[in-house]
């Protein structure tokens, strides 16, 4: 069972309580009525779908109900870290480095 740490409930819970909600850190243009169709398409539809590290929104829908953000690996499904909505992107290179160090130590 995949466990996900909810930063509001402050503990790991089963993935059954959660739902994914797409890419994180997508800023809605402040001048939404002025932008071109292409710019709107860029903002609204186009996503990178990277292989590896991705920043996503998740919702603890069957728990506290809160949206939060997660840094996840799309290949291994591993959650590197989760953090509250509105908080800045964490420094993932430090996390990846410590993962590597742990792996090398094994």
């Amino acid at each position: 069972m995949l466990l996900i740490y909810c930063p509001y409930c402050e503990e790991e819970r089963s993935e059954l309580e959660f739902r994914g909600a797409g890419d994180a850190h997508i800023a809605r243009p402040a001048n939404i009525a002025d932008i071109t169709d292409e710019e709107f398409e860029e903002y609204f539809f186009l996503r990178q779908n990277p292989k590896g590290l991705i920043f996503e929104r998740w919702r603890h829908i069957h728990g506290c109900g809160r949206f939060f953000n997660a840094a996840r690996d799309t290949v291994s499904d591993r959650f590197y870290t989760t953090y509250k909505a509105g908080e800045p992107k964490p420094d993932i290179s430090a996390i990846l480095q410590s993962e590597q160090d742990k792996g090398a130590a094994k």
Partner: protein
Amino acid sequence: MADQAIASRRAALTSRGGSAEAILTPAPAATRISLRAGADALPALSAALGVTLPTRPKTSASSGQRHALWIGPDEWLVFDESEADLMGAAASSGTLHSAVDISHRNVAVIVSGPGADVAINSGCPQDLSPAIFPVGACSRTIFGKAEIILFRTAEDQFRVECWRSFSPFVFGLLSEGAADASH
């Protein structure tokens, strides 16, 4: 003069079940509110409701027949087993808040006995060991396909709140879990 037709409410859970290890009992009627409020409203709301709204995840507070369960950072389930007027109490606080009367949206099943945790874990992924989910702990979670609010009322007793329309499913799956708990 014609007799007046008066509708009578039929209890959603008319059967009783469980096993020796996990006894299932439909909980008596209670008043319930779904309460949403910001941190600044909490002291006055707590005073008006007569129970201190908890602010730590998975915790609850009780005062007599009245219980306040932390659901999320700004959300609580408050219920009163003596069916006291919770909407009126919240309104008297004079604070900015949202209170929705869900007294009849929810029903509850009391699961009690030495296998109560095993019966619930048949459909719920939460760790119910006493260190992680002690007496007084509460959480919205999942039971099979239904969302529930789980509240540990004693070492060997839980209150399982669910939506009225889900209750036959929840009661049925709990019955299966209770039967399994005795094996």
